[in-house]
C-alpha cells in the first residue's frame, strides 16, 4: 500500500464516468486521498461484512465480486475489469461490504476512502449526478440478473454469459471453467457441461481443445433470448 504522487492520478481518474465532470479542485482533493494497492491472482481484496474500505477504482487486471453460502458454495455476482469501479454502495452508505472481492489476475487499483468520497459528493453537483447515473446502471444490471435467474432457463443464461464475455472483453474472465460458469449462473458444473454440448450440437459453438469457438454469434444471441444485434 502506498500513497502515490496524486497529481499524476488526475488524467487517470478523469477517464472514469464518475469523475469526468468533477471540478479540478475536487478531483485534486480526491486524488490526494486515494490509496494505491496491488494484488496477486487469488488474493482477497476485501471480505463481505468487513467495514467498507471505500470506492475501488480498477486500473489493471480483473476482479470478481462473489457471495458464499454457509456450505462454502460460491455465487459470482459480477466480474470487473480496467475502467470499472466497485464497492460503490458500501462506499456511499459506509455500511459493511455487500460481497467479497478477489483478484482473478494481477490487479492494480486505487481506493478512495468513504469519508473522502461522501465529502466530495456534498460539494460537487456533477459528481452527484454521475454517481446517480452509475448506480442506476448497477440497479439495471441487478434487475437483469434477477430476471435471468427467475425467468431464463440455464441454456439461455449460459448463452447470454458467453455473449457478454466476448462482447465485453475488458471485464471478461481470461480463462473460464465449467465450475466458474456454474457459480456465476447459480447452477452445477454438470448442468453447464450438458448445456455446452447442447449449444455445440445447435451449431452456436465448437470446441477446439482449450478453445470454445463461437461460430454463430447470431444463433448464440437467439439462444440467449437477446435481440439479434
Amino acid at each position, binding site marked *: 500500500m502506498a500513497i502515490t504522487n496524486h497529481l499524476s492520478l488526475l488524467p487517470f481518474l478523469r477517464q472514469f464516468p464518475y469523475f469526468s465532470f468533477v471540478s479540478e479542485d475536487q478531483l485534486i482533493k480526491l486524488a490526494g486521498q486515494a490509496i494505491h494497492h496491488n494484488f496477486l491472482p487469488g488474493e482477497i481484496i476485501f471480505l463481505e461484512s468487513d467495514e467498507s474500505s471505500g470506492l475501488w477504482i480498477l486500473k489493471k487486471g480483473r476482479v470478481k465480486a462473489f457471495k458464499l453460502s454457509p456450505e462454502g458454495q460460491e455465487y459470482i455476482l459480477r466480474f470487473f475489469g480496467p475502467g470499472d469501479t466497485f464497492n460503490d454502495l458500501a462506499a456511499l452508505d459506509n455500511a459493511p461490504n455487500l460481497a467479497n472481492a478477489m483478484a482473478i489476475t494481477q490487479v492494480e487499483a486505487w481506493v478512495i476512502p468513504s469519508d473522502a468520497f461522501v465529502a466530495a459528493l456534498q460539494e460537487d453537483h456533477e459528481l452527484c449526478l454521475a454517481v446517480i447515473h452509475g448506480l442506476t446502471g448497477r440497479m439495471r444490471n441487478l434487475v437483469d440478473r434477477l430476471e435471468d435467474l427467475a425467468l431464463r432457463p440455464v441454456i439461455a443464461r449460459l448463452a447470454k454469459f458467453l455473449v457478454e464475455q466476448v462482447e465485453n472483453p475488458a471485464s471478461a474472465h481470461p480463462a473460464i471453467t465449467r465450475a466458474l460458469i456454474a457459480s456465476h449462473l447459480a447452477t452445477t458444473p454438470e448442468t453447464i457441461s450438458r448445456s455446452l454440448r447442447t449449444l455445440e450440437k445447435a451449431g452456436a459453438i465448437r470446441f477446439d481443445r*482449450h478453445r470454445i469457438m463461437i461460430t454463430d454469434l447470431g444463433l448464440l444471441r437467439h439462444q440467449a433470448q437477446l435481440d439479434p444485434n
Partner: protein
Amino acid sequence: MTEDETWNPQIDPDICTGCGECVIACPTDALELVDDVAAVREPDACNYCGVCEEVCPEGAISLPYQLVLVVDG
C-alpha cells in the same frame, strides 16, 4: 504459470486426495500420481476430453477455456 500451462487441466493439490480415478479414466494416459497427488504428466497427450474433470469425486480438476469469437471472412 506459463501461458502453455494455463491451457492444461488444473489440479488443485490441496483438494486432490490421490484416489487415482482420473489417472484410470484418462484415455490418453496424460495423467499420473506424483507423491499421491494427480498431475498432468504428458500435456501434449491431453486432448481436453474433460473425463478427468467429470470423474474427480472431489471437484479438484478443472479445464480452463479461452473464448474465441470466429469472424466470417
